[in-house]
Structures are given as C-alpha cells and as structure tokens.
C-alpha cells in the first residue's frame, strides 16, 4: 500500500493506493475524481495531472500522443496511465464536478460470475442493488462477460427518513410522496448509469439503446416503494411471511424516462414481506445451497436477514437491529466513510485507532464499534452487563482521552447489545428449529457492508458471531450485487431466483415463544456458548 497525496485548488488530501494501481482508478472510488470521458484507455486526455514527486510508472504511448513535450517535461501525465509504486505527490488542477457517484473498489466486487452466452441484439446490461442507505449499480457487456464500470451512491430517499418504517409511513400518508419516493430512486439509477457511460464509455446517447436488460434486487420495502406496489401491505403483520408482488406496472414509462427503449426491466421478486430479493442474491452469489452440510448466511443491513441451510432446506428469518452496525443511533456512529474508525488494535503502548483514508477520527463504523466494545470489555472498563465499571453519568468513555469523537456511551452499548443479541438469538432459534447445533455448521457467510472490515475474533468474543472456527467464516460484503449480476448474465436469471427460494421456509420470530428468552440471554457481552442450541 502506498500513499497518494493530492494537491488541488480546494486543498490537499491523501489516499491509500495499491502499489501498481493507476491514479484514476484509485480516485474514482473517492469524491475527488479526475475528469474523464474514455473509460481509462488514454484516448480522451481529460484526466491530466502533474506529478510533483514520487515513484511512478514510465510514460506510455498514449501519453506521448496526448501530452506535449514541454508539458511532459514538467511532469504532466494522464492519470489513467499513471501507476503509483511508492508515496507520490500529484497536483490535480481540475477536479471533476462533484458527484454523488463513486466507483466501487475492484477488491470489493466479487469476480465476474458468469458463463456468458449469445445475447440477442442489445448486449449491454445494468445490475442494481437497491439498499436502504446505498445504491450500487454496475454496467456490463453481457456478451463478453465484462464489467465495464461500477457506481455506488446514497439512496436519495434518505430525506424521507433513514429507516424503512418512516419511508413506508410517508408513502402511506400521501400518494404524491409515494410517487416522489419512486421517482427519486429511478432518477438515481438513471444518473448512475449516465455517469458510467459518460466517464467509462465516453458516449451516452448512442449507448442507451444498446442496453437490453436491467435487473434490480433489494429489500422488500425498497422494491415496493420503487414500484409503488404493495407498500401498504408491508406494515400489516399478515403480510410479513407472504410474498409481495412488486413488479413495475408502468414498464413502458420507465423505459421512456430512462431513454432505454430496448431494456427489459426485471425487479427480482422478494421472498416475503420481511425478506427481500437481495437475500436471494446473496444465496446465489455465495452458493450457500450447494453444500451438503449446515451453513449460515447473515446479511447485516438495516434489517438483518438470517438464513440457515440445513444441507437440504432453507430456513429464513429477519431481525431488526442492523442500524447500530451502520452507525444509526450511536452517538459517534457513522457508515464506513473517510474518517471512520474501522479497526482498533491493543498493544503495550495503548490503543491504535485506524481510520479510513487516514483522516482524523470522525466516529466509528460498525467494525470499529465491535472492536471498541470488545476492548472496553476485555480491559474491564465495561462489564458484561453493558454497565460501565465507573459510572460516567451518561457522558460515556473516550477511547482516546480528550477526543470526543472516540466516546462510547452507555446508550451506544445498549443499542449494540440489543442488535447483537437479536442476531445471535435468531441463529440459535433456527438451529433449534432444524434440530441442529453449532457443531453442524461448516460455513458462515457474512454479507452486507458491515462485514467488510469485521474482526472475527472480536465479534466472537462479545457474542455477535458463534464459536466456530474462524476459517469457516467468510466475509462477502457485496454478495447481493454479485447475485444480481448473476441474474443479469444468466439466461435463466429469474428462474434461478425462483428455484432457490421455492422450498424456503420463512419464520417470524415474534411468533416463536422461545426466541425472546434466547434474546435476553444473549444480551450479555460474552461469547455465545457452544452448547446452548439444545437448552
């Protein structure tokens, strides 16, 4: 890992860059993007930067063609051609216009999953993972099986509330709001697509008709709000375990708004009121159901969906409590952005807090919160009950003395305890229903952004994850997008989704009496007992 220091007219920032990575790709994942119009092949010349010092790759042929000898002598380069090998300073005169869209680091995407095939006339396609907080969109050449570009941005519905219930409530109260919520997401998808075409292909108008398929996965509430179908049923308990139909009725209207005359639009169907098609996508991408032994899949998001594959059948449930892991309801909580404390190490000199992009600490993302609470318990600042050993009157405890951004309060610990207890108790309840124990579990897949940086040992120490061998635990943060891409690239994508969930059983834990007692027993900040599944 090298550090790229970028000087621009708005200031100086530093970014991590993988040795040998080009500057454009590295900056595309941030909000400091270079200008671009050709997809990084060195043909447009829009992405010029000036190297001030550092270890970089030699000039390429396209740079000789695009940059004058004088400019080359002053260190001007094309950032898409410029690879960085050691800490480097560059001057970036023209930042691209600020955009809500950033590309997703390649390391975070699962490898191209497809067995590609002959695809009719229009062989480009778009996969959309519609989350409550973020949208992830990728553009594909379905014929060659190549992922052309990816984008990630905030779900613009956020202004109607961070949590799903508020948005559903807003839609129910007012049909204009319901339409607005749908329109916001449709616009966002369109903007992400146009941003990709503009920067990676260099052509929008001619490309739009070439797009033949769009596949969309998401949690049920997001799909219902997007399509304007079934959202009123979601607040009714009778529909929690029922299928909710959310196909876009106004298919033609969407095509014409998006200027995509040839695009078939497939909203992949959710499993039930509280289990979305993003979960089916996780199952496809991780191939959970291919094994013959017990396996768990957790998708930690705004809700946490939990799946037990028994080797023969699927048991599915969902618990609230994800928001704590995304920083919601935590005083210094935040999502995994610049300045988020994501990792904390304990050594003889005290604590080392690592933040994303090495920015000054702004707060904790989910993995940082897990580390912080684990360390507070192991150093006996915090008791397993969640109480501080020394009462602090609600002010909390600063991990770094004097730094208010590193404070953890009693309320934070409480929210965390309730979230992790819900997950652990749900897993145990499913095991019980399947007449299995932790010993029968050969695999555990953690999906959702929370898992990306998670310290597994710490998560086990405070009872978020079960006491199974760490090498059986896989972190698959972007599995739902990968599953959506499978559906985009596979001739029978829709069929795959139906097949995988055809025999799934869904459970509403609030109707299973033992669940509450298990939940309460899991509130202590202690490891999960290996034997508790058969209490």
């Amino acid at each position, binding site marked *: 890992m090298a550090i790229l220091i970028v000087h621009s007219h708005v200031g100086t920032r530093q970014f991590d860059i993988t040795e040998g990575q080009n500057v454009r790709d590295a900056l595309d994942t941030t909000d400091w993007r270079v200008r671009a119009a050709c997809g990084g092949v060195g043909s447009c010349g829009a992405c010029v930067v000036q190297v001030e010092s550092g270890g970089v790759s030699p000039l390429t042929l396209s740079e000789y063609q695009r940059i004058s000898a004088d400019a080359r002598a002053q260190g001007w380069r094309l950032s898409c051609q410029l690879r960085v090998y050691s800490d480097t300073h560059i001057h970036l005169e023209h930042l691209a216009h600020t955009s809500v869209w950033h590309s997703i680091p390649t390391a975070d995407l699962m490898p191209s999953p497809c067995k590609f095939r002959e695809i009719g006339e229009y062989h480009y396609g778009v996969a959309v993972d519609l989350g409550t907080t973020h949208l992830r969109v990728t553009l594909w050449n379905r014929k060659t099986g190549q992922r052309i570009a990816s984008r990630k941005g905030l779900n613009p519905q956020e202004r109607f509330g961070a949590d799903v219930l508020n948005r559903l409530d807003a839609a129910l109260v007012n049909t204009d709001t319901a339409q607005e919520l749908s329109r916001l997401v449709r616009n966002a998808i369109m903007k992400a697509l146009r941003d990709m075409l503009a920067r990676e292909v260099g052509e929008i108008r001619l490309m739009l008709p070439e797009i033949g398929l769009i596949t969309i996965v998401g949690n049920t509430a997001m799909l219902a709000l997007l399509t304007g179908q079934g959202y009123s049923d979601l607040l*009714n*308990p009778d529909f929690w375990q029922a299928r909710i139909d959310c196909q876009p009725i106004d298919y033609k209207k969407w095509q014409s708004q998006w200027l995509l005359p040839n695009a078939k639009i497939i909203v992949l169907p959710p499993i039930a009121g509280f289990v979305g098609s993003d979960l089916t996508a996780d199952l496809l991408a991780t191939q959970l159901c291919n094994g013959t032994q017990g396996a768990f899949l957790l998708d930690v998001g705004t809700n946490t969906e939990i799946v037990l594959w028994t080797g023969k059948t699927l048991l599915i449930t969902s618990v609230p409590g994800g928001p704590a892991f995304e920083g919601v309801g935590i005083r210094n909580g935040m999502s995994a952005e610049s300045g988020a404390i994501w990792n904390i190490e304990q050594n003889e000199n005290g604590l080392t807090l690592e933040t994303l992009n090495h920015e000054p600490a702004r707060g904790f993302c989910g993995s940082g919160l897990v580390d912080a609470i684990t360390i507070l318990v192991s150093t006996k600042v915090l008791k397993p009950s969640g109480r*501080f050993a020394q009462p602090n009157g609600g002010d909390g405890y600063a991990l770094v003395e004097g730094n208010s951004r590193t404070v953890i309060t*009693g309320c934070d610990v*409480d929210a965390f305890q309730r979230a992790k207890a819900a997950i652990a108790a749900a897993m145990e309840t499913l095991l019980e229903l399947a007449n299995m124990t932790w010993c029968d579990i050969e695999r555990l897949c953690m999906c959702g952004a929370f898992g990306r940086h998670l310290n597994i040992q710490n998560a086990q120490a405070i009872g978020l994850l079960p006491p199974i061998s760490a090498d059986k635990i896989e972190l698959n943060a972007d599995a739902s997008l990968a599953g959506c891409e499978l559906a985009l690239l596979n001739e029978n994508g829709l069929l795959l989704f139906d097949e995988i969930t055809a025999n799934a059983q869904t459970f509403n834990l*609030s109707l299973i009496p033992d669940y509450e007692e298990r939940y309460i027993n899991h509130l202590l900040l202690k490891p999960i007992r290996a034997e508790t599944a058969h209490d």
Partner: protein
Amino acid sequence: MIEDIIKAYNEAVYETDKDTAFEVVNGALAQGMSAEDIIFQVVIPAVEEMMSLIVKDPDANLAQHFMTAQIAAEVTEKMLLLFKFPPEIIGRVVIGTAAGDLHSLGKRIVMGCLKALMVEVIDLGVNVTAEKFVDAAVAHDAQVIGISAMMVHTAMGEHGCAEVRKLLKERGLEDKIKVIVGGAPYRYDAELYKNVGADTWANDGVSAGKVIVDLIKEVKSHVTA
C-alpha cells in the same frame, strides 16, 4: 445471614448475572430459608429497589432492564413451585401488543416485574384485537388491560387502545377495568395516552410494574367501596 443473601442477590441482579442470582437463591434454600421468605424478603425488595433506581440511574439501559426483569421472573417462577400454599395474588392483568404490532419485547419487562410482585399476568401475545383484550380481561376477572405499541400507527390506530376504550364503555366496564399503555410513541408525546383513551401510561417497563400495581389497588378499593 439474611443480610448477606440480600446483598449478594442485589449485586447479582445489578450485574444482570442470572447464574449468580440462582446460585445465591439455591444457597439460601440450602441454608434452610423458605421459598416464601426468599420471595418476600429478597426478590420483591430487589424489584422495588430496581424500580426506584431506574428513575435516578442514567446508565441503566434497556438491555439491562430486559435482563433484570428476566431474572426476577425466573427466580419467582422457581420459588413459587416450592411454596407450601398458593401465594396470595394481589391482582390480575391481561397484556399484549396492539393490533398490527409484533414488537413483543417491551411487555416482557413489564411481565417479569409483575410476576415478581405477585401479580398474575395473562399474556395474550402479539397483534391482539381490542375484542380479545376485553373478552380476556372479563374472562380472567382482571383489573387491568396493558397494551404495548411500538409504532405510531399501532399506538394511534383505530383498532388499538381507542377501540378497547370504546368496548369498555359500551359494556359498562370502565370502573372495573383500567387501561395502561406503553411503548416508544407514548414517550415522544406524553399526552398521547389520553388521546387514545388510556387511563395512564408508563415511561418504561420497570416503572410500568409499579403503575399497574397502583391501578389494581385503585380498582379494588373502588369495587369494595
């Protein structure tokens, strides 16, 4: 001896350490203390202590409320099995979540505390219709109906507390059966309980225990007077 037991039990409850709480209780039984004495001299004072602490203790959180209520309920259940005579019950409550609401955990704290306070609790579960609340209260001769609602639309919904009030009125039961509500929406709006037709409300599950005991006494004094 009894002071040591009380101290050890209170400490275990404060630490929400169920295993230790049971060790203390089992130790007391082994030393010859009766189940009745354990309940009336150890468990009930501990619950009352907890109720008074919760108002003052800003550090006590929901997770701890769940755990302490659970300990109180489990210890009480175990001790009741050992009672020589059936314990004297101070009253009965039917409890459940409002129609449309599946959030069952809040009422669990209330139930745990009530059990330890010798109030009989009839749990109607989740998503309970108004009709069922009233019918069950009459069938069990309960003094109080407790309705938990965690969402604004179930707290204010026409099939929730408002309909329970309507039925009580229609059947002339308003003096015999009182209604208490609880849940997040009532905390945001301290006047909301009146708008939905409840007699009272409680800010948290532990305090609800005390409010319900008071309601039972009120109904009983009214009925006997």
